[in-house]
């Protein structure tokens, strides 16, 4: 289990949280040599506005237990999700946060690094908040070694509806370049 990495994506229904997990999971599983990934998501009668989360577990070995236990990375896009899941961040884990939607508290001190991005505001400059999730993933891509931009763009182009591809690419780029 030594190479095991656990990522928790969380926010509210409608932000495309599950899509984030599915894209990252596929990029790693099919395009990152020697790595496996499993994506699981909270599944329930919730709809837009309710809490939504998903996990991507990555390992160079076969992944036995498919869910997260203590996150290495916590990518969080809503206040509710932050409070619900922050206790499960690993000591020294890394937080990626939608800074306008989440107010961090003392729990965040156990993180070794906190990356902040106004992902929704960035998306709004492109005409829709729908692009916030991809802006966040561009930001994650630029600040971790989790996956390569090339592989991500390839997978996103295949998975996202044609009319959204172009703006998602811009959102990814803006997220990537956010300091």
């Amino acid at each position, binding site marked *: 289990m030594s190479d095991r990495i656990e990522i928790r994506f969380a926010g509210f229904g409608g932000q495309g949280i599950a899509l984030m997990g*599915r894209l990252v999971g596929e990029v790693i599983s099919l395009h990152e040599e020697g790595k496996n*990934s*499993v994506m699981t998501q909270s599944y329930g009668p919730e709809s837009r506005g309710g809490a939504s989360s998903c996990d991507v577990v990555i390992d160079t070995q076969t992944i*036995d237990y498919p869910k997260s236990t203590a996150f290495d990375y916590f990518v969080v896009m809503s206040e509710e999700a932050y409070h619900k899941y922050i206790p499960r961040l690993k000591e020294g884990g890394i937080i990626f946060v939608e800074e306008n939607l989440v107010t961090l508290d003392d729990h965040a001190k156990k993180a070794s690094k906190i990356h902040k991005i106004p992902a929704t505001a960035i998306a709004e400059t492109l005409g829709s908040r729908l692009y916030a999730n991809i802006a966040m993933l561009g930001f994650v891509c630029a600040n971790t070694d989790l996956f390569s931009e090339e592989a991500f763009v390839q997978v996103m182009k295949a998975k996202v509806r044609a009319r959204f591809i172009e703006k998602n690419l811009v959102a990814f780029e803006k997220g990537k370049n956010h300091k």
Partner: protein
Amino acid sequence: MSDKKINAPMVNTGEFFTSGNLAVAEGSLAAGCKFFGGYPITPSSEVAEHMSIKLPQSNGHFVQFEDEIASIASILGASWGGWKSMTATSGPGYSLMLENIGLGIMTETPCVIVNVQRGGPSTGLPTLVGQQDIQQARWGSHGDYEIIALSPNSVQECFDLAVTAFNLAEEYRVPVTILMDETIGHMSEKLVIPEADKIEIVNRKKPTDEAEGHLPYKADDDLIPPMAVAGEGYNVMATGLTHDERGYPALDVNSQEVLLTRLLDKIRKNKDKIIKLEEYMLDDAEFVIISFGISSRAAKGAVNLARKKGLKVGYLRLITIWPFPDEQIAQIASKVKAIFITEINSGQVTREVQRAVEGKSKVHGLFKLGGAIHTPTEIVEEIERRTK
């Protein structure tokens, strides 16, 4: 829906990152399934959804029925019409199907039923995991019978075991259940679909004798009668009543004994061919975890964790749940101090293990009652606690 080809290939060769529900559907297509009759139910609905898209593209047929009783009846009929057929459901739907699963057993009708288990009883936990239909799959229909049920624990195995399920159904002429669960059904991981010619497909035996005087229930030496379907020139008979080799009702003690003995023996005598198990770290094991389906993923994690702590723990996974591997478990029991079973129910497989072990080792069930899966850590803690 840009891809509207009729006669599209049934085998969607390639590498995918997809869910267990889609993988079991793809495996069924690869096995040659041409008919899906069903009624969507959480957490199995994606199987029906995927088949409703793919079957019409490949010369197959998808029908959504008014309920699960009609669904199971339709797949029996489709099979007698010569199509490999399936349905997918969850516990509440499986309960409704049980009567006609019995009809499928009695009429020796090849077909596949996917049960993506959720927490029960009744409507229970529609969106959350369960493994509570294990005994139901064995004994749910009335009467005495043998049955085959398989339990995948990965997305890849959902595909692989769908092919196996159709092959076993065709070979033994029996309804085969794939016991999945909500977590396996909805989680995504890598699926590799091989090229069509790399996938072994078994088709039901056809009669080779003259149509005149043909006996549709006269079995060969392997206890399985060849199966003619409607329209091939042979008399086709299918009844739920006890019947003779002609397929005519024969309501007497002797006919019952002859027929039922054969229906039981065609599975019992082939147990070694049907049963598939996965063993891990068993050689020097003092303790063994037996598990299946999603619970086995946590169990294997627990074995790795326990080994790091110096505990000699091994693992046996039931890929085939029914028929039950009595002999293999009895053998393991004679070599170990204790057997642990992890399952998301209150002891359905544990009962079977206790029966098979016959007191040769201690048996401890580690149960979840539905809605959540074990974690490797809690399994190891429980083993440590009970073996102090």
